[in-house]
């Protein structure tokens, strides 16, 4: 004998679990379907043969383009390859490549071929998103670039191109200060002297972009770096690094060198182009910015000065990543070898000012761009970016601390990065 009213209420309450169950089974259906296959297919195994479907492949290529010139160059090359090989290739320009790739990896349908920045590379590799491959003539790529895209002894992708840091000098300011070619700084002392000489009430002598990607060059010149990539250890607190940061701090303290925000600029190139600073340390990309935004400013490029431990610069690069989940890996490798052939790299250099990643293209490149010799020289002794997995937050924190390098304690900055990065490596 039950009260029917209670039963009424109970049956109504029962609809809630039923709905929940329905929703959960829907969830399970989602989970069990599409995505799982991608994860099960599993990448990151170097011995696996490249996946290749029957018939012509339809490749999706995702690039982060610097502008129309780059988009056109890559698209044209991909079309030429497609016609030659009987496949198709669709080049898509990403607005935010990190985010778009992340969505692709999670959904199990990433683009077949894409730009991978050296900074993002280690996390992609560790998570098994990349299909490791080497081209037939892999040794032709600069060793430092190959090393950048190598993790635990496996090279994951072919370097696309690279840039290095060099010193840009405003010709007018240089001459006005009575300096000649003989005065181009080759040591830290000379850099300080020249910066002092160039400094006027309206113009700083040198502008150094903020963060680890500029300060790091001084660490390399003093024989150190944030990490030891080969050993997989953090070496930030080495005495040489403290000295290097102290030197940078001294430059800024003297007032001859400034950070971009001090002269109301977003980056070194802007401060240099608007002539708020007479020298800057930027990479090849400054060529495009200068000719587009500040065509009237004449400047020369020199190698960075040597530090106590010799020459040193930083090297920035990207590679052609192939998705572990791609069904067209064989075709993608073929397209990469087409896109990275020496002729194509020279075409790209002409179109959007990047340097060939192949040693065999160096001679042609130097002949075509004699002014860029200081940049390509950096390829010999440049230090690639930090490529240990899981360090993104620690590096971001380092950058944020380096904003205050003028007043902060260099040893303190390095110690806090050492602690954070070591903790991240252990996770």
């Amino acid at each position, binding site marked *: 004998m039950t*009260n*029917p*009213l209670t039963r*009424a209420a109970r049956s109504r309450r029962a609809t809630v679990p039923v709905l929940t169950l*329905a929703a*959960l089974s829907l969830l399970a259906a989602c989970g069990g379907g599409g995505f799982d296959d991608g994860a*099960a297919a599993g990448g990151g195994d170097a011995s696996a043969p490249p996946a290749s479907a029957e018939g012509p492949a339809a490749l999706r290529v995702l690039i982060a383009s610097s502008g129309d010139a780059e988009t056109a160059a890559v698209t044209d090359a991909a079309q030429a390859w497609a016609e030659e090989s009987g496949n198709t290739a669709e080049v898509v320009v990403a607005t935010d490549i990190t985010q778009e790739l992340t969505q692709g990896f999670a959904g199990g349908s990433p683009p077949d071929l894409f730009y991978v920045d050296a900074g993002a590379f280690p996390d992609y590799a560790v998570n098994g998103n990349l299909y490791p491959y080497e081209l037939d003539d892999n040794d032709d790529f600069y060793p430092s670039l190959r090393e950048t895209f190598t993790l635990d002894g496996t090279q994951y992708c072919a370097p696309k191109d690279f840039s290095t840091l060099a010193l840009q000098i405003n010709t007018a300011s240089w001459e006005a200060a009575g300096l000649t070619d003989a005065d181009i700084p080759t040591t830290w002392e000379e850099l300080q002297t020249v910066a002092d000489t160039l400094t006027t009430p309206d113009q700083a002598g040198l502008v150094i972009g903020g963060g680890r990607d500029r300060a790091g060059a001084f660490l390399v010149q003093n024989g150190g770096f944030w990490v030891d990539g080969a050993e997989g250890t953090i070496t930030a607190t080495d005495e040489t690094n403290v000295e290097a940061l102290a030197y940078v701090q001294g430059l800024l303290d003297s007032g001859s060198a400034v950070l971009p925000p001090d002269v109301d600029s977003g980056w070194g190139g802007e401060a240099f182009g608007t002539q708020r600073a007479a020298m800057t340390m930027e990479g090849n990309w400054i060529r495009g910015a200068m000719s587009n935004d500040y065509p009237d400013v004449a400047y020369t490029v020199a190698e960075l000065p040597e530090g106590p431990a010799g020459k040193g610069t930083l090297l920035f690069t990207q590679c052609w990543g192939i998705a572990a989940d791609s069904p067209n890996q064989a075709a993608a490798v073929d397209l990469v070898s087409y896109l990275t052939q020496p002729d194509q790299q020279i075409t790209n250099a002409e179109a959007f000012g990047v340097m060939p990643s192949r040693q065999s293209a160096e001679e042609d490149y130097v002949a075509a761009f004699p002014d860029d010799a200081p940049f390509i020289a950096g390829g010999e002794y440049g230090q690639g970016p930090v490529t240990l997995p899981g360090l993104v937050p620690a590096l971001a924190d380092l950058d944020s601390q380096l*904003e205050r390098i003028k007043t902060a304690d260099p040893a303190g900055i390095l110690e806090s990065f050492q602690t*954070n990065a070591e903790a991240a490596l252990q996770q």
Partner: protein
Amino acid sequence: MSTVRTPSEASATTGTRPPEGPLRTSKGRFGDRNAVGWLFVSPTLIVLGLFLFVPIVMALWVSFSDWNGRGSPFAGTVGFVGLDNYTRLLTDEGLTRSDFMTSMRNNFYYVLLVVPAQTVFALFLAVVLNNQLLKAKGFFRTAFYFPSVTSSVAISLVFLFLFAGTGVVNTGLDLLGIDGPIWFADSRGLLHLLGDGLGFWDAGAPPAGLTSTSILGLSAWQWLSGPSVALSVIMMLVVWTTTGTFMLLFLAALQDVPVEVEEAARVDGASRWQSFKAVTLPHLRPTMLLVITLGIIGTWQVFDQVYVMTQGGPGKTTLTPAYLSYSYAFESGQWGVAAAMAFVLFLIIFVLTSLQRYVLRDKDEAKDRKLERQAARRRPDLEARRAHSTAVLGNQQSGGGSL
């Protein structure tokens, strides 16, 4: 169980023990009606379930897992890590916690200043617009509402230019003889600067007692920084853009206040301010509750302005939990921690909103209800009798033959 139902309703929902005769047909009819009802709400249910319920369940699972962003989070390779992601945020010493606490500090100061400012401004503008004597009301209403309907990305870009080192704002300050800061590169905290100005401390050499005390990964000195100069620009922008929306809400509520009541107050000799305080404001309480609730929820979730203008810099002083969660997920692939941040943020919003509802509740109504409850407690026998009779009534009405 004190509701009294008609027999047909009760049997239709119980669905057991089919009654005889005409009741049977009525049951069938109502059963169909239920099915039709479900059919009508099903599009909403499916859409809500698919785009709201399922993602929330997925995110909750991710916050307890070590999913690395590859393939489905429900795949067999994804491991359950318990509360690990939450402890990294809240208890484990390290960069993750200090990042999260920095973002909490920034957002706390942000909410503390933005919510009152936008509420007061919105109310002020609404009162001005509600003035009988004001000419060109339509123009002002549109003008005040305009920032709210413009894309926040576009407005953010305009602010970037306005507050550039040599932008309009600094040029204006220059005319007044003030040397303006480089707004978006200035990480100095306003409280630090204020304390410095008043002589409490020297911001260049902060008191050791504050720097050496560490609370949840940040020193007391860092907690006390106040919003940075860069964050205060974002606050100005947000107050400016949200005020219009809230002004409309207040305006609608003000137009509902009966004119007679206000007139009566004036006739009774209340001054303009007294009648506003004692008559108009109490009428606005539900709207106030809504505006503050929406304000708290919106400000704790601030993301797009940070994404467009500062990406968390300078010196992490514009980092907010929403932006930090995005960057941990998409830039460093730490999905579990990122999802945990989102749920901690949800809890904070939930607690603060509940607290705020409690503070702003209708105190008279609450008192009445309390008195009623006390009265009921004093007459327990009466209540019991009433409940008993209802049950008996229910049984009889549903044709209770089982007795």
